[in-house]
């Protein structure tokens, strides 16, 4: 057991190190370096080489790639992602609060999505191939097929403009306390929630169908265990456990959805910073955002894996 847990943790750490290397290689070594990325092709063509060399020296980009990679990794461990190219501000300072705010939004979405998806998934599986199941399945497909920005736009028209129940744009400040941000965010949460429920309900439904069709559920039923006990105490854990990994993977697509709604609702999170950084070609900020969200996703995967280890005796080998 301890060995298995340690192995999982070590693998997660290894994944993160590889990720950091990958992020650095993809953004700084393959295309050249941070400066090549920041400057446009026109500029690179027009600036004389000696001037370019001087600019690179000023930014410390004249060192060999391997040396820069080591420096990058060392910095990353200390949460130092370097300075922005344009304003020379630490990238970590720029993303700290937005990261908290995005995690907050994601937490709110998950807190609402998981129970609802569980209810729908279980109900659909229980009524497998009947009207309820068909409705849930079709609804789920529609739910995750309609883009978030479409849902967000429709929700704004309905609930902020035509029937002004909720704020259309978020005026809370980046460093406001959590409850202020959440109070302003019902529409962004609802937007991501729709896709999340659809997605998670679908995964859970499949898990539950398998669990309900399994021999041990059949045996329980034959021994006269009440149906609700079979469903909630036996089939449910058996159905959820194999779905945990798929659910943790969902964290990655959750981030993508959050980026979109943050832009639509002017929510002060990582999505805003990400688009700002991409349009400004601020490589270090993008690296910091990519790595910090990867830490969250890898962390969630680790939690899911450990939960499976804990709950499912078959995996403890």
């Amino acid at each position, binding site marked *: 057991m301890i060995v298995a847990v340690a192995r999982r943790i070590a693998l997660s750490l*290894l*994944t993160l190190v*590889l*990720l950091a290397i*990958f*992020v650095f290689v*993809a*953004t*700084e070594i*393959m*295309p050249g370096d941070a400066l090549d*990325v920041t400057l446009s*092709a026109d500029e690179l063509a027009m600036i004389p080489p000696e001037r370019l060399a001087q600019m690179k020296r000023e930014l410390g980009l004249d060192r060999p790639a391997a040396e820069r990679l080591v420096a990058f990794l060392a910095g990353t461990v200390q949460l130092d992602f370097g300075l922005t190219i344009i304003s020379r501000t630490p990238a970590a300072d720029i993303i700290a609060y937005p990261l908290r705010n995005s995690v907050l939004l994601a937490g709110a979405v998950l807190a609402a999505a998981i129970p609802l998806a569980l209810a729908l998934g279980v109900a659909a599986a229980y009524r497998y191939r009947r009207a309820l199941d068909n409705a849930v*399945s*079709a609804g789920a*497909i*529609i739910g*995750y*097929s*309609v*883009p*978030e*920005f*479409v849902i967000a*736009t*429709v929700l*704004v*028209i309905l609930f902020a*403009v035509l029937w002004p129940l909720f704020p259309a744009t978020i005026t809370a400040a980046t460093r406001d306390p959590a409850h202020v941000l959440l109070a302003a965010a019902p529409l962004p949460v609802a937007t991501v929630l729709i896709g999340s429920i659809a*997605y998670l309900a*679908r*995964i859970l*439904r*499949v898990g539950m169908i398998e669990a309900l069709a399994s021999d041990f559920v059949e045996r329980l039923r034959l021994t006269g265990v009440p149906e609700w006990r079979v469903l909630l105490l036996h089939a449910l854990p058996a159905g959820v456990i194999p779905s945990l990994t*798929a659910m943790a*993977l969902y964290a*990655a*697509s*959750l*981030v*993508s959805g959050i*980026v*979109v709604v943050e*832009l639509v609702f002017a929510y002060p999170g990582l999505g805003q910073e*990400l*688009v700002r*950084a*991409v*349009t400004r*070609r601020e*490589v270090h900020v*993008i*690296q910091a*955002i*990519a790595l910090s*969200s*990867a830490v969250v*996703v*890898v962390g969630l*995967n680790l939690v899911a894996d450990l939960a499976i280890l804990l709950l499912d005796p078959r995996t403890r080998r």
Partner: protein
Amino acid sequence: MRGFARSILRRRLAVLGLALVAAHLAIALAAPLIVPHDPFKLLDAPLEPPGAAYLLGTDELGRDFFSRLIMGGRVAIAAALAAGFLAAFGGGLVGLAAAYYRGLFDDVVSRLVEMKLAIPAILFVSLFVTGFGQTLPVLVFVMAVIKMMGVIRTARAQGLVLMEQGYVKAAILRGERGPVVILREMLPNVADLLSVEFALRSSSAMLLVSALSFLGLGLSPPTPDWGLMIHDGLQSIRSEPWLILAPALCISTLVVGMNFAIEGVADAAGLEAARGTAGH
């Protein structure tokens, strides 16, 4: 085969999905022939209401909105299909190879897959767009890489099953070389699986490319594109809501149609599509 077709036709949602996809593809292919106006030309005053001259009026630049709407799926659909194909084919090969060779290669591939799955798609695209520029080939390539990871997983799992099959074992015993075994013996046996993957990955690539365009990280103006159109239409969300609703309806019907079709076809073929949606 006839039984399979009948089995699909019995599924009403699948039929609806196939019809939607067919209609979208037909329009996208025929678009240059059927557009009433040049979708780029500044024809008239901006935001003319729908009428006889312009079926859906003009957009915020005075271009014919109907023509742009018809053309608006072409680039995104082509990009999504290309990415989906590359992902299914490339991912299939890599996954099978991992299953065949095992060992270090398998470990490296598995680690890479896990790594990529930990970076949200939009961030992954951001990394590459920043590094290599926001061009169509870069977008297609990046989307293919993103969507490939899930395919590798599926193909690898299936490959491990195939490795236990008699004909694969026989081929190996005959002394066939690795690439030959993978291409000749294994690949044909995962063709149906990869076809489903291709469709699935294409549909999620369609969602991704639209979201990217909406964010300003995907296709660039003046390309007619639904994601861009919705972004621009936000300005007149109250006065000319059709500028948003029409492209929103287009994207949604296309992706919903694709997923209904995939679900139905996979179900009829006895394949489990539900698991594959992990690439969403």
